[in-house]
């Protein structure tokens, strides 16, 4: 029963994510694209919930929907001038890009279809937050620390580049 419900939910989310992702690319107004991106992020968060990764879902909502998207829209509003309706146009390579994307998509789907699903369905941790915490401070402490430095570098870089703009004015 639960599995049927899950399946239905999955397909709804699937359509939501894919359709909104396509909208991001195809729409001509970049603000609309950004809003559909938010929708796509929400859909992904839903899929996390279906996979019983509630913590990840929460993070996805907080970081991507809450922070990244808002930042993105701010960025668009601060930099865009002129006609906002024609702000996300295709360039001359749309046909070639379409072909390449389609080919890549078909190849991945084919490979997926021909691959036997052999992933061991082991027991999932009930307490994902605890497991994550233990992984971060246990076997994954090196990447965890590297990620901290990486974020620091990102912040420093943002400040440097922003300061540059200020001085140029």
């Amino acid at each position, binding site marked *: 029963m639960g599995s049927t419900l899950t399946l239905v939910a999955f397909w709804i989310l699937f359509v939501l994510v894919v359709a909104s992702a396509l909208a991001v690319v195809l729409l001509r107004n970049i603000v609309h694209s950004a809003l559909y991106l938010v929708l796509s992020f929400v859909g992904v968060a839903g899929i996390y919930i279906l996979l019983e990764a509630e913590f990840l879902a929460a993070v996805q909502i907080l970081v991507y929907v809450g922070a990244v998207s808002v930042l993105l829209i701010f960025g668009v509003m601060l930099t865009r001038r002129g006609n906002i309706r024609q702000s996300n146009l295709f*360039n001359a*390579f749309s046909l*070639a*890009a379409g072909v*390449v*994307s389609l*080919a*890549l998509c078909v*190849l991945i789907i*084919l*490979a997926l279809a*021909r691959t036997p699903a052999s992933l061991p369905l082991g027991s999932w941790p009930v307490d994902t937050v605890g497991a994550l915490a233990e992984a971060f401070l246990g076997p994954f402490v090196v990447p965890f620390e590297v990620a901290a430095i990486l974020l620091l570098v990102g912040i420093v870089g943002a400040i440097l580049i922003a300061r540059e703009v200020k001085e140029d004015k």
Partner: protein
Amino acid sequence: MIRYAWLVPLFPALAFPVIAFITRRLRTLSALVGIGAIAASFVLSLGILWETLTSGVTMEKPVEYALSWLALPGAKDWVLKIEAGVLVDPLSAVMLLVVTLVALLVEIYSVGYMHGDPGFSVFFGYLSLFSASMLGLVLANNFFMMFFFWELVGLCSYLLIGFYFHKPEAARASLKAFVVNRVADFGFMLGFFYLFLMFKTFNFRELAEALPHAPHMGLLAVAATLIFAGPIGKSAQFPLHVWLPDAMEGPTPVSALIHAATMVAAGVYLLARAFVLFASIPEVSLLVAYVGGFTALFAATIALTQRDIKRILAYSTMSQLGYMIMAMGVGSMTAGMFHLTTHAIFKALLFLGAGSVIHALHEQDIFRMGGLAKDMKVTTATFVLGALALAGIPPLAGFWSKDEILLAAYSNGYTGLYILGTVVAFLTSFYMFRLIFVAFFGRRRAGLHGHESPKCMTVPLIILATLTVVAGFIGAPFVPHGFSSWVYFGEPHHLEPNYFVMVTSTLVAILGIYLAWLIYGKEVISAEALAQRWRSIHTVLYNKYYIDEAYLWFFRRVVLGLAEAFHWHDRHVVDGIFDGVGDTVRWSGYRLRYLHSGSLPVYALVFFAAVVVFVLWVATPVIGGIR
């Protein structure tokens, strides 16, 4: 001391850049650096020889140490392994001492001889580079390293022959030496690479151990013959001898050091180093012996008629080198190396003496000299001593060593070569004393007056003259534990003194001197009349058997003709192809550049397209295509 043998070539090797880059402007300092470096090497070489002889280092138990220079590990074994190593045995120890001694004396002498020359510092730089290369050659423990230094001494020789490059003859002579030696070196290189292919090593000792298990004696003979091409070129043996007389265009100290005492002896040294190779193939040994013997006779006959003092000495050098090579061929490495040692001393003496004369007169034709004995007492005395040694008058150095070669030929059953050697001994004493009676004792023909050279030139002459008297005794047959018990192949064999050989060669030498005195000293027999009577022979000899002319003809007609043909072919066929290739390459470069338009979407598109292509390529067989 032996542990530090690698320092011996290093001192002069360091002196070269120091002179070239730092002290070039300061002439005195340049000379001091050069002389100081070679003096240090000389002292070290003395120590090495002493330790070699006292600490039980023998030909069978040498000291060898090496760094791996280039190593390429293959799947199982080494694909390629080249060492940079040092091999010290009595052979190399003796050779080190000879080279450093002569180089030291020549450099001191050059201070006087090259005084006032604009290229004074450069000259000392080149001499240092040469000494370093020559010492490296002597110490090398493998063919590859030896070849490296072999080429380097060739380069130095080229630079020094052409030292007076503004003189067209000098430029031409240096080019000739370079080309002739390239031909020979190519053979040498082919030969030792052949050996490498057979035995997978360049190392002398490993080769010696592997030789008895050679897969194919015929191939080995080919390799040995090719290697022998090296000595034929470097030691100026027939038919590649033509460069040596012309090399006399270089400054006289260079002729003494490079073209008499050391570099030209490198060929003989190579034969000694690789003696086991030649000894194991009788046919090649025989070839070596006859090439040497023939050159000895051939060069001695040419020397009879030459007029240029340095050229007479050059032909004499060729002839003596022929002796040494003949000794190697008849199976006596000891005799060959012994003669190399003594010859280095007295031939350096003769060349430096000739240099002293040229320095005083600025004249090289002996028939424009005369009566020099009155003006240049030290030069004359030492020169005569050197000539006596060369002629083989006992008890001077040349007597003992030449005698040993003749004895080796005689007792090893090469009677023909023994007789030939004795004839050469007669010719040698004749042409040397022709030179002496004409230049030093005859009447003043052109009214040229000499003057004695400065101390820094005469002192080396005196030292060399002293050694000429003494040096022979290290190998004289009655001396126990002498030269033959250090440097030998197989086991030390001590030839019993053969009084028949000794007396014959001495008599023959005295006869030569007497005849020279009759013709040129007392002039009871007219030289002109003789030349008239044997006119055709005289002309042939004077023109050096027309070998140069023959080569020139060959070169002009055949080589240039071929070259013309090839040139045409090159210009019209190969150039066409290469121009085409070059243009295509350049054109495609310009075309391909347009891919890089600077447009970001294009870059991204290419990136993904490449990914798609690669996935298609690799994954299609795995996925099994679109079914």
